[in-house]
């Protein structure tokens, strides 16, 4: 289990219902909580808004891969987006100060991009992203992004990578623990039948709890 308590599963939309239950059971058996996650990759803002309307209510976590400046600006501003992430291998896209000011959710640093990097420039770019995030006090999420068991690293290793890339020790520890758990918790609350709107929640109604 490598020291984790919960796992966010990125499930393709086509197999959401059939396959996800089997997949979830595998993690539940070893004592891990699971949350469903979707990674949206769009080429323009219209596509992103359309996908957000369609999938926001179906998943616990919605993340957007920022592939160009337009998509990044919309993703950072939109409150339905929980996490934005940038591929450090993509030379044309970076997390700027403007985007940091717009960001409502959290910035994700995916360890898989760093593990599969092609050049040392990728680490440099990740360091610059972390410097911007630190300057603007943006919430950061550190994740493994693993697709195979060989890519799994323990939380303390991921925290150490955050520290090496320029986050403070406290910020790095929060990025692997309290920040993701608070996002998940607020989204689960939002998806509950007792949720009315932000700040308004049904306390009880005819035995409904």
């Amino acid at each position, binding site marked *: 289990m490598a020291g984790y308590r919960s796992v966010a599963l990125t499930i393709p939309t086509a197999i959401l219902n059939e396959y996800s239950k089997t997949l979830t059971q595998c993690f539940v058996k070893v004592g891990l909580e699971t949350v469903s996650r979707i990674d949206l990759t769009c080429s323009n803002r219209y596509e992103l808004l359309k996908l957000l309307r369609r999938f926001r209510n179906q998943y616990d976590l919605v993340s957007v891969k920022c592939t160009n400046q337009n998509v990044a600006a919309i993703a950072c501003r939109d409150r339905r987006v929980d996490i934005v992430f940038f591929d450090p291998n993509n030379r044309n896209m970076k997390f700027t100060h403007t985007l940091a000011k717009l960001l409502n959710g959290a910035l994700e640093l995916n*360890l898989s991009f760093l593990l599969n990097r092609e050049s040392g420039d990728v680490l440099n770019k990740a360091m610059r992203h972390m410097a911007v995030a630190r300057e603007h006090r943006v919430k950061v999420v550190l994740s493994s992004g693993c697709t195979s068991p060989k890519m799994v690293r323990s939380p*303390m290793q991921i*925290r150490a990578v955050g*520290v090496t890339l320029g986050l403070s020790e406290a910020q790095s520890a929060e990025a692997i623990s309290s920040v993701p758990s608070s996002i998940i918790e607020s989204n689960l609350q939002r998806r509950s039948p007792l949720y009315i709107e932000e700040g308004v929640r049904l306390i009880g109604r005819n035995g409904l709890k």
Partner: protein
Amino acid sequence: MSKRYFMVRVIFDKQLTEQNLIEAMATSITKHFGEVGIASINLRLIRYDPEKAEAVVVCEKATTDQLLTALTFIREIDGAPISLLVVRISGTIKSLSKPKK
């Protein structure tokens, strides 16, 4: 100087020797932190059990995060994928093998 002992779980499909393991660690440290980094980390392999696939390594306390990062970035040895999972860090070897409270 204070030390930190790491319990490392090795996830690797092939047979791995002590020599290969320490070489991979040293190469990763040199690649990411340079010669000065490897000197300050002062890495030593205390023991490696191929049957349990567990190793114990030691470094200087101040360089704990550097060693953790270097171990994180090791992803293959001789072209085969590997994962070095740090399962526990301790100040003494004795407490490393104690069960968690």
